[in-house]
């Protein structure tokens, strides 16, 4: 008995996962339009910026957690959620950036350019977002086939992206680094896990 089958994954697990990943954004909308929740407070633009950024980072870390999860539990179907989760990370970060350009800066391009070039934490964020775009574009099955092994190499960009994301958050905070520190700790565990497995595999191949 193997639950879930590929078909069940496609028809049940993935839609549920999709809804789960989308729900923070839906919650944001409900608050923004005052249909539920405490609302966005006195500075809604900043609230949206913070919310989307944090959830983008969470989606990123979640994406990185899926492979270790699969290895720990032995459940292969978990990997099938990885693309969706990664694309959700891009979605949240994309809206985070769009909110910055539109509502926050009002399309003031010279100010935006100045920010990206002169404020280090924004430079890091911009680089991370830029790097996410080719990953998003090549997330399809077609591209995976087309690139073959190069696809894996390209998608290792997710590691520096996650590091830059945490760094961007850390440098953005005024004084209380508790939250960024938690994300860094989680990232350290996830990357450490990969490093450990990478070394183990190298040793195994070297030995054979």
């Amino acid at each position, binding site marked *: 008995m193997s639950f879930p089958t590929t078909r069940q994954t496609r028809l049940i697990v993935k839609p549920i996962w999709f809804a789960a990943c989308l729900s923070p954004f839906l919650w944001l909308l409900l608050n*923004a*339009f*005052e249909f539920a929740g*405490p*609302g966005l*407070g*006195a*500075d*809604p*633009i*900043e609230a949206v910026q913070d919310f989307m950024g944090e959830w983008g980072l969470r989606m990123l870390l979640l994406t990185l957690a899926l492979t270790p999860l699969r290895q720990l539990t032995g459940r292969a179907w978990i990997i099938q959620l990885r693309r969706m989760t990664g694309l959700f990370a891009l979605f949240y970060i994309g809206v985070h950036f769009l909110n910055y350009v539109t*509502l*926050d*800066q*009002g399309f003031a391009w010279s*100010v935006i350019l*100045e*920010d990206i070039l*002169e*404020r*280090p*934490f924004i430079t890091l964020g911009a680089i991370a977002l830029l790097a996410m775009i080719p990953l998003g574009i090549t997330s399809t099955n077609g591209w995976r086939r087309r690139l073959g092994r190069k696809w894996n190499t390209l998608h290792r960009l997710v590691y520096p992206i996650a590091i830059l994301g945490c760094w961007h958050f850390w*440098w*953005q905070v*005024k*004084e*209380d680094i508790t939250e960024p520190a938690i994300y860094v700790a989680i990232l350290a565990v996830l990357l450490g896990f990969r490093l450990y497995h990478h070394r183990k595999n190298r040793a195994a191949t070297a030995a054979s």
Partner: protein
Amino acid sequence: MLIRTSRNNSSPGVKSSEITPESVYLNRRQLLRAAGISGAATLLPGVASADDIPARYKRIPDVRKSSFSTDAEPTSFDDVTSYNNFYEFGTDKSDPSAYSGAFKPLPWSVRIDGEAELTGTFTLEDILAPHAQEERIYRMRCVEAWSMVVPWVGIPLGDLLQRFKPTSKAKYVAFETVVRPAQMPGQKRATLPWPYREGLRMDEAMHPLTILATGLYGVDLPNQNGAPLRLIVPWKYGFKSIKSIVGISFTEDEPYTTWNDLAPNEYGFYANVNPEVDHPRWSQARERPIGGGFFAAKVPTQMFNGYAEQVAGLYKGMDLTRYF
């Protein structure tokens, strides 16, 4: 009974039941604007919920108007009392209003010491009794690049300080916030090295714009706004306007200030609002006016927060890029 302290044009003989509640009156433009926009703005709390200021806030009697007040539209009472930086209660903007319920601002005393003839510990009543309370509607600009207009109630700091006869050695005035971790949950962690401390040069402290605020919107200061006594220096970034003051010292040397100690390249002693001197991590050229909802465009920041005419003289000849 509502105290109409400012701009209502009602003639005598108008029933108090006919007087528009302050928060509706002062938000009328937002209400009208909101009516034209579908979705978010129409249902924002603080705009549509045109309640009177809650009865639990005690009205301050005999508040006089002041010519120092701006005629800019004040930020709503809801926003002023729910969007705060007061790390003693937590570091989120909503923390101070959420977690300051247990704070007891009365009874209160202030310790006055340092280079002055008259020093000691004085009750709040002794501090305030000889002074007339004034309404000062001031612009407030946070270093984080947002701003409000707040109708404070308070007394000129200079009038108070003169009572203690500072000596010629008193070149600066230092202030200290209360430390009460039992009532201020944010102080249970060393987010900042408590107590929060700030200071002013003597001429800044004596300037007629500088006040000790005891209230806002005609009522006693809510806990989250720095009850029962706080400083307001409207031409400087908001972190200079230290809250819940328990100590005032006259000093010879430039006093310790908390944010300057934490990040000296980001927060200076003077902290004058200056659109030409950026914070290392963000621009200070523009600010977001709180209360405008989603479509509040950033507005250009004014030199000295628009008080240049009154205070620029204090800094003549001073390199404001160096002394930020």
